[in-house]
């Protein structure tokens, strides 16, 4: 269910990026897509009532220094969070570039409407 909603968010972003005529709105659409993917990654690692995957003394079971089953069944997968951090930084970089290109285009053409910005054809 949650995954479906997340996918819906992705499709909303895609729709916005493809259909809208305003450059800023297209940028926002792409951002929504990126957020949807980030949300999806976070949900992959989410666990209800989970805990941080840091091994304390009480988590070690037995003499061999093995991690207890309880710990394994409750701790959260940390990897998606690391991935999302990286993905957010990347999307920040591309957002900054995209916005600056929007601003430069507005200075040249005096409009954000892509139907009016059409010098290239063919």
């Amino acid at each position, binding site marked *: 269910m949650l995954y479906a909603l997340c996918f819906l968010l992705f499709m909303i972003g895609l729709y916005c*990026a493809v259909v809208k005529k305003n450059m800023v709105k297209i940028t926002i659409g*792409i951002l929504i897509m*990126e957020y949807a993917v980030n949300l999806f990654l976070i949900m992959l690692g989410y666990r209800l009532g989970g805990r941080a995957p840091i091994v304390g003394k009480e988590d070690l079971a037995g003499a061999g220094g093995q991690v207890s089953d309880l710990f394994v069944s409750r701790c959260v997968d940390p990897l998606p969070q690391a991935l999302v951090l990286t*993905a957010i930084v990347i999307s920040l970089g591309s957002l900054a570039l*995209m916005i600056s*290109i929007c601003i430069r285009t507005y200075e040249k053409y005096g409009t954000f409407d*892509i139907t009016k910005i059409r*010098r290239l054809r063919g």
Partner: protein
Amino acid sequence: MSVPLPVFIAIPLVMAFLLPLFSGSGRKGKAVATVLANLTTVSLLVLAVFSIGKSGVYEIGKWSIPLGINLVLDGLSSLMLLTISVVSAAAMLFSVRYMEQYTAKAKYFCLFLLMVAGMNGVVLSGDIFNLFVFLEIASIASYALVGFGCGHEELEASFKYMVLGSIGSTFVLLAVALVYGNTGSLNMAYISKAIQGSGLNPGLTFALGLFITGFGLKAALVPFHAWLPDAHPSAPAPISAMLSGVLIKTLGVYALCRVLFNVFGVSIQVGWLLVALGILSMVAGAFLAIGQWDFKRLLAYSSISQLGYVVLGIGLGGLIIAEGGNPAWASLAILGGLFHLVNHAVYKSLLFLTSGSVQMSTGTREMREMGGLAEKMPVTRATCTVASASIAGIPPFSGFWSKLILVVAAFQAHFYWVAAVIVFVSLCTLIMYLKVQRYVFLGELPENLQQTKENKGSMLVVMVFLACLCVLMGLLVIVPSLRAGILEPAVEALTDGIGYSANVIKMTGM
């Protein structure tokens, strides 16, 4: 292992951020930055030559493989590394003079080297998320470079490219997330092992579709090609050469092959899909190119068409493998595709550089306003003719050999109509380059171009160097030792298919 793999990414990355420091210090600083940037690309070229025929795995930070990030060098990677470094060294040398027209040279070098670092990273990465990160580094640098001139058209093209490119990257990221959710691993070798164990479930199939769309957008295969004819002509000429020559191949074709062949394993449907995409790109690209009057736009459309050959060859090979056909035919088809990839990198970058040279001298890209430049610019004309002959597949030049291999492979595997399409598109290519020769270099010299002069210095050196490569590249297939050393390991990397995972795991054990 003699060549430390992270060096390929670290050198350009460090230099990229070092060079802008020189931007403020006037002429001298600019000269230093130029020399350093060229040294960087040349040293990468030397390293890439040394990495030929080697293979190895590097674990970043000594984290062992399923946990950490790893870099993998195999035949295909070293072939791509070599291609990238040849084209980037040539384009960098060309920019020394060409970029005098623009301001902010140091920033240009910074973006250029970032793009090279990103591409090297994509080629070496053995980790699917890392591949995405490097893909984004290279893409973002290229978006900025397309808009480097900051004119009306550059900005428009850059925005278009960026929107489609970002959608492509987002698709790839979603696919990476789906793969991680389904297999619990990000390492390509381990994902491949997990998929072999469990087979494809709906989630993974969806991810496969997203990968094809995402990388297809980056490679500008025909249904996804809308950005390329705007973006490539708008960039400065050396960047057009980089974009058409290597960027679309590294981010698109290489990544697609790696994921399809080595991670998911090719199926019959995927093979047909690649063949269909290839043929569509070839035919549509060629027809659209013939109608163009803008010199660089014609070249850009022809890139789409030529990339179709590469995808067709590789797809045909995959199809034969998946159908259980003769492995020798499959290797031949893939060999043709990869060889065409390398050839195209050389002659298309040469063509874009000659177009840049013409544009710099005449100030226009409109072919109807040109003519008769053969006397005024003899070297440009000669190199352009060599490259055109190559791309059209005229016998002693490189393009002929790769097309010949593709035709032979298609015949052997009984895909006669594919062979017919290859020959037909080749004829269209010949027509479009005759058009270039006719309107740019032959005919009447217009009044306003009487003062045109040939460009000097580094630009000529680069064009002659690439033209020599065009002539000599045929040796790569004719001389058995060169073929066995450079091309065949790359073919094996793809025909091995999912054997890749076993190889990587074995190499870490060493």
